[in-house]
């Protein structure tokens, strides 16, 4: 099945849609509550730092752990591959004549496909975590790291349980179903000759593992059977209990929004076991390499080994929320799943799923280990883009058009002339839209597109905006493609406003794309060309008080990606750095000017926070709007969740983009606001396009147009 078919099937699954949507919103709330009174940045910095280490450090921790464990009589085995680990575990089971092994949840066991491999040898591992047990009975894979069976309804579970037990099971009696699992699995703990657990933490100081669970199954699996096997990846090691507690502090909060799980269990070496003839438990630690050790030496990929497997990066990912975990493959899911699939299974397996990332950066800002996931995904996209090629049409477009500013300009000019017969005026807001886009039917048709502007922004700016005689301040404004070709008014409104208040606005002599679309498509060569051309068009930062953008996505590219793509070019790198330091969204600059605004009309307003505003530019216009609008401001639920645009993403993965947009529209409708403001032309295009398509009569405005049209400056 192609990835697009898989996505389609998942999107059509109403149960999955409902479960994931409810989960995502309640998770966000409980997570926000549980972190109240804590400084998330401080907590995650601690975890990041304690996990920031090279191969020497990890091996030193491992040897300390091993010495301590062996001193207590336990066995430590280093498995090079997954298969190696599985064989070892099978041998232990056979040695003890144990067909059955009770196991508590372990992502590492999914990674090495332990169950499958043991079953092939005639052995029976039994999952004891309720969610995992449901899936084992149903012969399925987990679709979430922490809530493996989140895609299943109570009815489906009842059916599985009733087939398994041969009894009738009431689908509305969830407590009753939990009871069934309790009874059946209770027998299993006492019948199994071996118990297996994973480890969330491995403390080198004394050779102790830590397990973070809710159900109590890990305690039983490690207590009742006479043999205990611990399957653990080297990345779980830490120095001492203080570090371990740093992890325990964030893990349950980020995983399920719990302050703490019901159980955190710490186990060292061989404890008494009356079922073992020696009177002590036989304990084996199986440390799995399976490719990870090599990545500890990689400057960038080693970041992925900081993961504490909380699942948060799936919980907050808008793309995951639309499709669930199965599309990611059968092992790791969510943002980290995209990365680990590439690292552990190889980039061939990851090349398609990597493209599902819309680039909203929510994961990078949520990870309790401080991993910049989006950046790694973006870099991996470029790796696979170069290796397996990117969509050939896109490549041509980047090569021949977007990376060549003059060609882009004349093509867009042609476009705006010839589109005329195909444009029309949208009824209620009188905006010019494209009547119908050829070849864009079916699932890709879910919003209206704005017509191309007859004149480019640069042309209109040069005609309308005259230099000031005695400017109080000077700014350099980077318009970006959307303003240049579709929404010149957004840029012009800003320029007029600033000129009125004595701020001279200058612009590049020609407009060049910021390069982000090429990066997102996995085409670093064209991205580099665009970025270098851009820098050549920029004026000297020394002559300006600020560099401004009205598109935070372009802004983010200038601030971050320009640096990445000029590393081998000291002059351009220095220039990027200087520009980046002066760069800000237009709203932020207005706040710095200290202008006092008041609202002219009585219409109510809501605000969608563009992903790259808060996450790339560290700015949100929400406070500005709240202060000016007071009661007229209606807060938007999940304001900072992506609108689903992502440039060509919204065409490549139209069903996901559409789904994300629908949720945004739902929240917008709930506010009952008359006007939707945002400060990114891409978000304007997506949200306005969706609202017009659905016939929802709301005015969507960029912040600059809103300020020009709906606010006035209070004379000081």
């Amino acid at each position, binding site marked *: 099945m192609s990835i697009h078919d898989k996505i389609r099937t998942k999107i059509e699954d109403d149960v999955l849609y409902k479960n994931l949507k409810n989960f995502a919103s309640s998770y966000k709330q409980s997570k926000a509550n549980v972190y109240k009174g804590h400084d998330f940045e401080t907590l995650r910095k601690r975890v990041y730092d304690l996990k920031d280490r090279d191969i020497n450090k990890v091996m030193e921790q491992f040897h300390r752990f091993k010495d301590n464990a062996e001193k207590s009589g336990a066995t430590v085995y280093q498995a090079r591959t997954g298969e190696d680990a599985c064989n070892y575990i099978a041998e232990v089971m056979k040695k003890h004549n144990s067909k059955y092994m009770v196991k508590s949840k372990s992502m590492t066991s999914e990674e090495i496909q332990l169950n499958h491999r043991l079953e092939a040898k005639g052995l029976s591992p039994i999952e004891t975590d309720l969610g995992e047990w449901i899936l084992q009975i149903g012969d399925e894979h987990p679709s979430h790291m922490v809530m493996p069976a989140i895609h299943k309804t109570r009815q489906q579970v009842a059916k599985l349980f009733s087939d398994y037990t041969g009894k009738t099971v009431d689908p509305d009696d969830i407590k009753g179903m939990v009871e069934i*699992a309790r009874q059946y699995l209770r027998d299993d703990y006492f019948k199994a000759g071996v118990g297996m657990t994973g480890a969330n933490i491995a403390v080198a100081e004394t050779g102790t593992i830590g397990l973070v669970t809710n159900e109590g199954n890990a305690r039983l699996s490690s207590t009742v059977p006479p043999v205990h096997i611990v399957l653990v990846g080297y990345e779980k090691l830490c120095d001492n209990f203080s570090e371990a507690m740093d992890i325990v502090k964030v893990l349950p909060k980020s995983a399920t929004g719990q302050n703490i799980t019901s159980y955190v269990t710490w186990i060292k070496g061989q404890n008494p076991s009356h079922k073992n003839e020696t009177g002590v438990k036989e304990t084996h630690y199986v440390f799995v390499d399976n490719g990870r050790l090599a990545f500890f030496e990689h400057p960038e990929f080693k970041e992925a080994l900081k993961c504490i497997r909380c699942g948060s990066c799936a919980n907050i990912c808008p793309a995951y929320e639309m499709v669930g975990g199965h599309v990611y493959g059968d092992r790791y899911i969510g943002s980290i799943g995209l990365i680990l699939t590439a690292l552990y299974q190889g980039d061939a397996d990851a090349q398609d799923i990597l493209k599902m990332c819309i680039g909203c950066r929510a994961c990078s800002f949520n990870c309790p280990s401080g991993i910049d996931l989006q950046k790694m995904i973006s870099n991996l996209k470029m790796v696979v883009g170069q290796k397996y090629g990117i969509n050939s049409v896109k490549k041509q477009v980047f090569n021949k058009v977007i990376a060549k500013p003059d060609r882009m300009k004349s093509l867009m000019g042609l476009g705006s002339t010839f589109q005329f017969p195909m444009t029309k005026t949208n009824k209620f807001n009188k905006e010019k839209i494209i009547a119908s886009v050829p070849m864009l039917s079916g699932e890709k048709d879910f919003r209206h597109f704005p017509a191309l502007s007859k004149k480019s922004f640069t042309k209109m700016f040069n005609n309308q905006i005259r230099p000031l005689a005695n400017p109080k301040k000077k700014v350099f404004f980077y318009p970006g493609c959307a303003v240049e070709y579709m929404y010149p008014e957004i840029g012009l409104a800003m320029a007029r406003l600033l000129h009125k208040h004595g701020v001279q606005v200058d612009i590049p002599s020609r407009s060049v794309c910021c390069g982000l679309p090429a990066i997102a498509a996995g085409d670093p060569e064209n991205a580099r060309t665009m970025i270098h051309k851009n820098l050549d068009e920029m004026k000297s930062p020394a002559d300006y008080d600020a560099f401004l953008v009205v598109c935070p996505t372009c802004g983010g590219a200038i601030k971050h990606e320009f640096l990445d793509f000029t590393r081998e070019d000291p002059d351009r790198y220095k220039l990027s750095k200087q520009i980046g330091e002066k760069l800000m969204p237009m709203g932020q600059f207005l706040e710095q000017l200290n202008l006092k605004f008041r609202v002219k009309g009585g219409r109510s307003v809501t605000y969608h926070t563009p992903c790259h505003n808060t996450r790339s530019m560290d700015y949100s216009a929400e406070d500005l709007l709240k202060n000016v609008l007071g009661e007229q401001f209606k807060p938007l639920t999940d304001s900072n969740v992506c609108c689903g645009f992502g440039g060509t993403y919204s065409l490549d993965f139209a069903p996901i983009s559409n789904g994300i947009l629908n949720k945004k529209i739902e929240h917008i409708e709930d506010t009952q606001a008359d006007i939707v403001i945002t400060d990114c032309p891409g978000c304007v295009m997506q949200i306005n396009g969706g609202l017009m398509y659905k016939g929802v009569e709301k005015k969507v405005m960029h912040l600059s147009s809103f300020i020009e049209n709906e606010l006035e400056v209070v004379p000081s």
Partner: protein
Amino acid sequence: MTSKGNSIIDRFTQSAIAVTAAVKVINKEQLLSEKEEHNFKFISSEILQQFDQHYIGKEGVDEALVEVNHAIAETGTVVLECSNEQVRTATCVAEHLYVIVKASSLVECSHDIVDFMAENTQNQGGYIAFISGPSRTADIERVLTVGAHGPRELTIFIVSDL
């Protein structure tokens, strides 16, 4: 000892209630009468000077009473060193688990017991359980259900005069 509003006992109690544990602040004498009132099938407590040594099987037990080493106010957690297999099994399979904790062994947060953790995992073996509320799951449609594999209820006696 109770009620001032922000003593460590109050903070612990709040957190413990948040994870659906029950908390009773009592003195040693009251603890003795609690012991008489209940029919505990397994007791392990220094205060009560009773250390039961029988194994409980898969059939479980209605009520067990175990003295723990510490309690953590920030999360409402009780901390039990249970390398002793009988104690460990009893706390895993009791339907209703009762624990005793001395008021003097309450700490603010998990970082306050790292020395205790290191000392108790120093030697041959070690098994320390952090228990916060009853056993629970939300694996079916995210409906929170208590009593997954372990105790369905947890009651904590804080002995205020010890």
